[in-house]
């Protein structure tokens, strides 16, 4: 892999320096333990953090492919950050590029209808047009990387494998869902209460832009 020298980043940014991707546990394949976990609906604890309070019943958002988060994140124990790889180094988590899907699915489950649809997109050189589920207003500045730093990478009590528990703060139990479904209000009160409980910054301009 050659390093590209043609560009530089905003303020020379690079990814998170504290813990590299190498520490992410990417476990492929089914484990018996996973099946066991499925039977519980307990929200696992994130040590050193008080989860935000509030619930919301979002509408079902149809997606071009009914992506099964449960199979990936729960059954196969794939770390959230394996696909949403930008979350730890950018303000946005990002939707994984189609090439990442194909990295596995050019060999795995190629006969399944959803994978056939995905392969069709890939062969047409066109990423699937995903619809947005979690959104905040334009005047809100939210950064994934700093939240992950606070609750995961700076939190020695939380193994990186359990990052989904932190994601669940705002995204709900995505690993029990197929396509993502909004279950948290993501409004100012929701953010504020969590910032209060966890001593986050409390200044308007931290989050409003």
């Amino acid at each position: 892999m050659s390093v590209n020298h043609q560009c530089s980043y905003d303020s020379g940014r690079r990814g998170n320096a504290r813990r590299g991707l190498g520490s992410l546990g990417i476990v492929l394949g089914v484990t018996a333990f996973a099946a066991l976990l499925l039977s519980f609906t307990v929200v696992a604890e994130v040590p050193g953090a008080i989860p935000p309070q509030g619930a919301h019943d979002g509408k079902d958002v149809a997606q071009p492919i009914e992506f099964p988060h449960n199979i990936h994140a729960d059954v196969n124990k794939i770390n959230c950050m394996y696909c949403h790889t930008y979350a730890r180094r950018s303000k946005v988590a990002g939707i994984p590029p189609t090439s990442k899907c194909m990295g596995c699915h050019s060999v795995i489950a190629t006969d399944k209808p959803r994978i056939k649809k995905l392969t069709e997109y890939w062969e047409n050189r066109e990423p699937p047009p995903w619809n947005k589920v979690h959104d905040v207003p334009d005047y809100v500045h939210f950064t994934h990387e700093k939240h992950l730093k606070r609750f995961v990478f700076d939190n020695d009590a939380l193994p990186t494998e359990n990052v989904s528990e932190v994601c669940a703060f705002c995204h709900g139990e995505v690993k029990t869902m197929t396509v993502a479904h909004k279950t948290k209000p993501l409004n100012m009160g929701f953010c504020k209460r969590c910032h209060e409980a966890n001593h986050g910054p409390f200044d308007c301009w931290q989050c409003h832009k």
Partner: protein
Amino acid sequence: MSANKVNRREFMKIVGLSGAGAALAGCDMPTTVTLEEGKERVVSYLVPEEYVIPGIGVWFASTCQACPAGCGFHGRVREGRVLKLEGNPDSPINYSKLCQMGQASLQTHYNPDRLTQPLLRQNGELSPVSWDEAFKLLEKKIGAGSGVSGDKFAWVTGTVSGHQAVLIKAHLEALNSGNHFVHEVINTAVGQAVSRDMLGDARPRYRLDRAQAVLSFGADFLGTWNSPVHFATQYAKFRAAPRGVLIQAEPAMSLTGANADLWLPVRPGTEGVLALGIANSLIFKHHVDASHLPLTVRNLIANYPFIEVAKVTGVSGDLIERAAAMLKKHSPSLVISGPSAEGHVHGYESATAVMLLNILLGNVGQTIEPGHSFPLPQLAAREGNTADLLSFAEGLKNKRFDTVFFYGTNPVYTAPASLSLEEHLAKVPFKVAFSMFRDETTALADLVLPIRSALEDWGTHAAGYQPGEPVLGFQQPLMEPLYQTTRGMGDLLLALLTMQRASDYAPFADYYAYLNNFAAGLPAGVRHGAANDKEFWQATLQTGLIKLVGEARTLSVSASTADLPAYKVDSEYQYHLVPAARLGMWDGRHANIPWLQEAPDQITKTVWDSWVEMHPATAAKFDVKVGDYVRVSSAQGSIEAQAFIYKGIQKDAIAVPMGRGHTEYGRYNVDPTGKPRGVNPLKILSPVTDSKTGELALFATRVRIEKTGRTHELVKMGSNDTQLGRKLAATITSDQFNRTEGGKTDVA
């Protein structure tokens, strides 16, 4: 992952496949967001390049095309869109700085009035055709079997350099034609001729940073002269303690004039006389040694005692005296001439008189140093002028051409009405315009080919004025073309050449391959240690330029006399028209940029419209108040605009800014009633030329003025021209400044 095999160029293509959606990948495309889930798309990349991270900007280096100065910039790209440009710190032209035109070139790229498909004149109207049809037509008209060749064919362009210049030249050679007319209204052609004749180098380098005094005769080096951003960076050093003094002599205040310590209001056309008057004072009053000047020159200067000079130039004896004293006190100095001194019948002579001051003061070799040769002469800038416009117009009149190609210039807008360009062009059977916009020239073309913007295309560019070791600026696309139906200019030139010389040009898949091939052929000396072709290419794209190694030329001074005619009064047309050039509208090419229309003019603070600058004494004569519509008439026509009254203009001069009054240039040039915004002073210029160089004498037009009776508030920023006694812009003397900030008071 296949991403590793995809080079940057293919990556652009791939990103493009996801179309506008790619822009949304960062989840925060600015919209008035509703919080209803599922309303917005969040399209991912197909195969992103390693360095693409949504939400984080990536910076790419390229070369600015907003004027011919050739500044380098870095563009910030996020989610497939270029968002912001900043100066390239590696560029020896502009370091890390940009002017407002460079900043605003984003809006040339994203302009809503861009042409998106080829247009062909059918039944008198330009209507869309496919590229296939366009190429078939081109093949038929100028292809190998068309029979077009020689004198019948012409290219009319703005300043071109780099591989565009190479390919245009090759195309002309293939067609056996020598007709390349290179037209720029804002140019330094007369000054270059004088430098060539008196210093032996048409392109010497000016070292403001070394000067302790600068006397400029209408050279707006902070705004429109040669390389404004470069000179601004030098200006900062010039103004540091011990602070240099700036004296500006010109009929109407330019941006540089507004920054002068001493601004001399000189009657248009008498700049040469003023220069000799100052020389006279220096020799006879301040005893500057003139023994190194030939006797003829000393005799010439002796004929211009400052009392006489004051009468002719309108500059008071006191001001002439002060200018001479400053030049005597501060050394070394630098004396330069610009368009307002050079744009007369005797413009060359005036510039000669100005250059004599440099020779008298011993500035040559001190603050004027020889330029470097451009080691790849075929890539050097082919700089525009107005003499080419005149010979093109003459050719049109004589029906010399049956096929004309236009690129990077808008002569139908910039040519004076007296040239009847529109009328003569109508008789040319086949006119092709390569353009991003519908402008006055494009509107008359028979075939219009929409080209890519500077931020979407490949290219190489060399500035005409190279302030240091010569550099070749590299241009690379910062994003996928907004319109897939546009073509790169280089690609089009290659396609044209392939029609003629398939064996030479068909091997290049496209302009990118052509440039790649060029870079691979460069000698080791300019590769700055790159191990192989690929590494060199990467390094070039990263820095956005190739630093070449040129040889310093030598200066050989020959002081010749200047033949300055006596000043003549015109009793019918009593005033001189000054077509003022500004950093902003430039020659009119930036009039379709909303930011530049809204950014107030630096001197008058007027926005979105033209104005007529008048001295309060002149205004009083005609009972004109600020905002009154004034008619300015020359023998060639008249224009009307609102009066702006101030003391920054000579009493016999009337200034109207260039750049507005477009009849075709998109939505930002039309007012709500459908009329053009502003007026174009170039239209009413007299067809007078500089007798030595054949350049159009832009400042030689005489006009009369009338009050129209219409009036309206002049729309400008701020209502106060004075500080009303508050300490807003406080001023101290340079003695005090030098005392407190480390300089010396007397720098002799």
